[in-house]
């Protein structure tokens, strides 16, 4: 990158001169006690080391401006996909408004073919305090600021999982507000969308625990904060759980989505993520078991 090479060259030149001067002009024992020649300055020299840096600065500035314009000011292609990102303490809400899908914490996007690009445009805001969306290998960061809408775009060209995390201090659990972006082939992405569009499974033949778990869930305060599409649970304060079991992680990334972790999370979220806003539900062991069984079935 140009900026990097220019700064490196400046460093080598100036540090080299400095080092040379320090060695060459150190005080030696053999020196006479006379003071060295006093030189008070030179307008020509001052002028030269004013003008040359100005030229360098102009070069850097023009290069930078070009990148800014390419990134921020190009029109959005018609083939772009829209995703709305809402930051919460301490998790991410994603919705695909044109596709009718709402999910949390794990963002799925199609990869983009350079011949017919399908970049993903993120429209970003926050439900509480400021957050920042940063997946280093996909793009720079952009803040999610309450009462304000920011936009950015990403354009992954290779499939895979891209990791990142919140980059604007947002409270106690800023550290465990992780980002996971799954870049998928267009076919896999379409399949994922189809599956996410469905309402949650409500019949669990042969799985009495899950059936009972569903009842327990719907009778408890869980439904005040969480949505499970197709049921009475329509809360918006916490993540959408309609397809919870299709996710690899819980609690916005730091914990693997296994039945054991899920059970511990429901029992006491603060034991896994101190400062999490989900309260401990004080359920008995039986209820915890059946709720875990139920949530594990929400594929």
């Amino acid at each position, binding site marked *: 990158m140009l900026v990097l090479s220019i700064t490196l060259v400046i460093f080598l030149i100036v540090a080299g001169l400095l080092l040379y001067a320090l060695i060459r002009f150190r005080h030696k024992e053999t020196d006479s006690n006379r003071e060295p020649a006093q030189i008070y300055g030179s307008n020509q020299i001052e002028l030269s080391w004013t003008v040359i840096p100005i030229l360098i600065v102009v070069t850097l500035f023009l290069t930078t401006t070009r990148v800014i314009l390419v990134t921020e000011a190009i029109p959005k292609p018609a083939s772009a996909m829209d995703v709305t990102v809402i930051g919460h303490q301490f998790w991410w809400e994603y919705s695909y408004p044109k596709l009718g899908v709402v999910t949390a914490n794990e963002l799925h996007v199609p990869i983009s073919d350079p011949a017919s690009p399908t970049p993903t445009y993120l429209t970003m805001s926050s439900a509480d305090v400021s957050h920042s969306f940063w997946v280093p290998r996909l793009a720079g960061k952009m803040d999610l600021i309450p009462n*304000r809408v920011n936009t950015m775009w990403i354009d992954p060209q290779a499939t895979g999982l891209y990791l990142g995390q919140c980059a604007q201090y947002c409270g106690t659990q800023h550290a465990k507000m992780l980002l996971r972006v799954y870049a998928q082939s267009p076919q896999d992405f379409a399949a994922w969308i189809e599956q996410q569009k469905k309402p949650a499974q409500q019949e669990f033949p042969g799985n009495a625990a899950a059936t009972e778990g569903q009842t327990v869930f719907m009778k408890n305060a869980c439904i005040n904060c969480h949505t499970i599409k197709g049921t009475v649970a329509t809360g918006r304060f916490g993540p959408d759980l309609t397809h919870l079991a299709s996710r690899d992680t819980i609690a916005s990334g730091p914990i693997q989505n296994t039945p054991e972790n899920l059970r511990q999370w429901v029992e006491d979220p603060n034991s896994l993520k101190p400062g999490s806003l989900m309260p401990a539900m004080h359920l008995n062991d039986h209820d915890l078991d059946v709720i875990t069984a139920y949530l594990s079935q929400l594929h």
Partner: protein
Amino acid sequence: MTTTPVLEAIDETLETQGRPPLNVIYEWLTTVDHKKIGLMYIVYALIFLVIGGFEAILMRIQLAIPNNHFVSPQVFNQLFTMHGTTMVFFMGMPILFGMGNYLVPLMIGARDMAFPRLNAFSFWVSAFAGLLLYYSYIGGSGLYAAGSAPDVGWFAYAPLTSKVFSPGHSTDYWTLAVFLSGIGSIGTALNIVTTILCMRCKGMKMSRMPLLPWLYLVMSGLVFVAVSPLTAAQVMLTLDRYLGAHFFDTQAGGSAILWMHFFWIFGHPEVYVLVLPAFAFANEIIPVFSRKAMFGYPAMVAASVSIGFISLSVWAHHMFTAGLGPAGNTFFVFATMVISVPTGIKIFNWLATIWGGKIIFAVPMMFMVAFLFQFLIAGLTGIMLSAAPFNWQLSASYFVVAHFHYVLVGAIVFSLFSAFYYWYPKVTGKMMDETLGKWHFWLFLIGFHLTFDFMHVPGILGMPRRIYTYEAGRGWDTLNFIVGVGAIFQAIGTLILVYNMIHSYYKGKQAGHDPWDAWTLEWSVPSPPPSYNFAIEPTVSSRRPLWDLKHPEDPDSDYES
């Protein structure tokens, strides 16, 4: 030592020898002498340096290994908030104001500051602000011994500071402490500006004033413009929290961006408020230890003044990721890059001052050499960060943390340590121990580079700042461990400095008036200077009055235009 007899003090009968301790304490508490106030500033700031450093060590222990449970997330968030606030408001500003308080009148041949009582007032307000901030540990939630320190980060972004997200009083302690510190800073800045403009000795035109007062003039001017909005913003935040105003309350239509503007219109000039005094020390110390006059004095003055002005138009480079849009971003990229020009001029002039000199590597000069290299690197990473696209990637990451610590520690603290060794003989009349000084230098240098060189890398690898822990396997573990080890080196180095200062006070060699064979007025009076500084108002005819006295055959006044 060559000094001029007319500048000698007459006697020292007003000094405190042999008086009851209570009288001495009373005298310090009620003093309006700029030197005593300066020293109190410095001692108070050093106490906060140790406290803030201790907080840094705790954070580095927590981050040394992944998934550590040394402190809880709540405690970690308090630690970085307190570390940042302490180091900027209760260490950096007071210690530099203290140096300025002590040195400016002596260097311009004045007997005190323009407003001695205001000076004492400013000091005590700042000092109480620091105590107030730390009182939050016991009073933060409003109940005795049930509280805790603020945890909103040192830039306290809205709306995290609103009542909804920060209940209790911990945030109020932060707000009031910063508010009071702001009042103290503005008072001192006013005092310094007036002193420099009105109280220079005979013959000292502005163009003959040493560079240190020049830089303090620019720095104090910046304090007016930069600290005032921050102080006002604290009032607005308090109105939001207690009287239902909605400046920053986004739930009611307030603006989070507004706070960012208020904070950074303070925050970036603040960097220059802190770094200009560091330049000031360099401007005095590098020439003396190179045995040459400062190269390009007018250019240095011009560069300092233009840094002052440009630094007022760069603040939004802290907000490149807030979505200001291409026009705003481009402007602030340009302003930020332009400031590297006058900064570069300074580095070149220091280089030219060294060039052709006879460099004496005493401890002050060793710190200055390190300062030059580190400031060069810090400036260059600064240019990188000024390019907005680079910034989108690296802002709020450990790269930024490393960059600004390179400025704050690598440049400012190194320059400050250099100044300690250089002026300590003037203040106490004793030389500081050279061997201990060299131990301090090398330990601190090694620690600094272990910590802050390696800290750049996790930032590039995607590690954001202000996280209390991280998962293993992202390539951050070893680097963070090295960073932690470096912090311990720095702590030991700093403790050696503190020991050296106490030890040398009792055991140090007598310094005499002018141990470094220097050229500015403060070296013409006894060490320590009497309370009235100058028995007779000095008259100067050049920028280096003592050079003229020592070399009457070849005075500076023949060359200065």
